[in-house]
């Protein structure tokens, strides 16, 4: 057995002990003909971690999950599960199970037979398999439904059957492919909480694929953001939200204003219109960058009311539109060459700005964040 290669954590990932690595992808690439679905990915998932793979459709997240499951084989690279190389092993030889998108329950089998399927295939006798299946059916709160067929269940119930079926073999890693995608909003939120507490109770890693950033942010210990087959960043929710490493991640996670700029020095950037703005950054002078400013980090006030300490991070503008959200107000402020979104708490009507008002906007210099444009 080969030693796992040295762990290569991105700057924002919390360090993990080598022995606790459940899934280890090194230089994994998957090509379908001329199309590269997954491009040279290095990724370590810790034992007992709730890990999300997030990205728009076609970003390679599902392909990556399917490679871990054994439903696709990597074109290049090494794939280890608890230190064992499994890259070319068929799915039935791997200690992982999958909750499929739209569940893929066996329509000809009852709930109990669906759940006990995995055990029966391993040669467990019928009575023992049924007993263990019933335990899991109880765990997912479907007792009394053992003899129903999948078609007689609601979407949420089918989801639970899929979960119980995948857990019956006691996988070392549970893979979930958009498991909540087919549920309506309320049920989805309930299931999020349940999945999270189930994962805590079982203590096994859940690797969860989703295109829904809110789902990823609320449920996961760590998140990997993928785009066009590349792994852009791995980190905790706040790492991704507050310290994105690329323009794509800044734009994809939450709402933000991206303002094109050039690096002047380690402490200063120059916006497109020549305005110098204080913004600490690690990039060499001259680098084309974007400054990410969350709408809620921008303050808005009448011209001339900018506090002195915020002068280096302020801009004059004109209100172009106002959106009333009840708990909040969203202003579209035209700043010379671009429009910025500004979000404030709701204030009494007489204090609100209206379209055409001249305003000043400013932000804390720790609130902005500079990302390279490419």
């Amino acid at each position, binding site marked *: 057995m080969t030693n796992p290669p040295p762990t290569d954590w991105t700057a924002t990932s919390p360090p993990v002990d080598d022995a606790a690595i459940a899934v280890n992808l090194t230089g994994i690439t998957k090509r379908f003909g001329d199309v590269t679905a997954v491009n040279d990915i290095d990724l370590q998932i810790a034992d007992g971690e709730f890990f999300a793979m997030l990205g728009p459709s076609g970003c390679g997240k599902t392909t990556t999950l399917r490679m871990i499951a054994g*439903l696709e084989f990597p074109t290049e690279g090494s794939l280890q599960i608890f230190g064992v190389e499994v890259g070319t092993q068929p*799915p*039935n030889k791997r200690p992982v199970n999958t909750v*499929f998108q739209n569940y*893929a329950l066996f329509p*000809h089998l009852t709930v109990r037979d669906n759940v006990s399927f995995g055990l029966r*295939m391993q040669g467990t006798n019928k009575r023992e398999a049924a007993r263990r299946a019933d335990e899991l059916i109880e765990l997912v709160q479907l007792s009394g439904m053992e003899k129903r067929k999948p078609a007689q269940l609601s979407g949420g119930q089918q989801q639970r059957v899929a979960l119980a079926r*995948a857990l019956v073999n006691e996988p070392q890693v549970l893979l979930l492919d958009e498991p909540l995608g087919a549920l309506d909003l309320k049920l989805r939120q309930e299931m999020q909480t349940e999945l999270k507490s189930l994962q805590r109770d079982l203590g096994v890693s859940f690797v969860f694929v989703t295109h829904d950033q809110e789902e990823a942010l609320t449920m996961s210990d760590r998140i990997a953001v993928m785009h066009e087959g590349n792994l852009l960043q791995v980190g905790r929710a706040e790492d991704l939200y507050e310290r994105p490493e690329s323009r794509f991640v800044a734009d994809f996670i939450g709402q933000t204003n991206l303002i094109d700029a050039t690096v002047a020095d380690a402490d200063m950037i120059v916006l497109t219109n020549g305005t110098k703005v204080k913004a600490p950054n690690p990039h060499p002078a001259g680098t084309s960058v974007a400054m990410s400013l969350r709408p809620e980090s921008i303050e808005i006030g009448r011209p001339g009311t900018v506090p002195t300490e915020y002068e280096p991070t302020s801009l004059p503008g004109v209100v172009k539109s106002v959106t009333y959200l009840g708990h909040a107000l969203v202003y579209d402020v035209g700043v010379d060459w671009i429009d910025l979104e500004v979000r404030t708490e709701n204030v009494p009507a007489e204090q609100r700005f209206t379209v055409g008002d001249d305003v000043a906007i400013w932000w804390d210099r720790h609130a902005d964040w500079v990302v390279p444009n490419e």
Partner: protein
Amino acid sequence: MTALSRRAPAEDGIATPEFEAAHERQKRWRGFLMALPAYAYLLLFFAVPLGIVVVYSFGTRTRFGTTELSGWNLESYEKLGRDLVQQVLFRSIWLALLTTVICLVIAYPFAYYMATRSARVRNLMLVFVMIPFWTNFLVRNYAWYVILGTDGPFSRVAEFLGFGPTRLLFTQSAVVMGLVYGFLPFMILPLYAAIERIDGRLLEASRDLGATGYQSFRRVLLPLSMPGVIAGSILVFIPSLGAYVTPDILGGAKTTLLGSYIVTQFLSARDFPFGAALSTVLMALMLAATIVYFRRGGRTL
């Protein structure tokens, strides 16, 4: 009822119960009219002749080879107990079963392969399955006659390989080969339709849960494709049981099957009542086979 009363009761645009009832009646009547030509055709050329056959089966053959219909009796049905008749009957059922099983074994992997190809390849393969239908059935059977004959390519290859001169023609094997060839498409098509409908992710789920390839076939693919297996088996078994052309050309005198035997009764023996009784029994057998299969499948095809 006048035309007016049928349409009128919708006052102020409101559909009264009378109006709805009339509307329903009208719809049913229109449906019946559309089905009428087919009904009439089937009644005239299927139901009526079928009735005549059943009636004849209770008649008596006169010494001159004509049929006496007065004085109904079961004599023809009693003849079914004769050894020769029993032999023909069981041989027919056996060969039809054998044909069905061989077709199933050959067609299933093919249908699975076809169902898992890209749409373009699939359509191409469907065309290939259909191509034999473009040639007359009789011609195709005579082609087999040539292939399997003493001087045919089959025999030559066997001789070359050292098996000595082999003549398959006029054996039961020849009949089964011909029947399998003739009815294979009827097995492939329903199997293909059934397998193609199955969600491929179910097989992935099965493998993911630890099933081997064979277990996935046995526990997921086969049960889910059962409607196709049943439909295909009926479509092969029934025509094989009553087959006439293929056994007659490839089977020769020694392997008389039900179809040829019935023809003999009508044309050579001129025993119309016995021929009719055999036909009635054959139909009953087919009906029974169909019902048994439907019951076991427990679903619509």
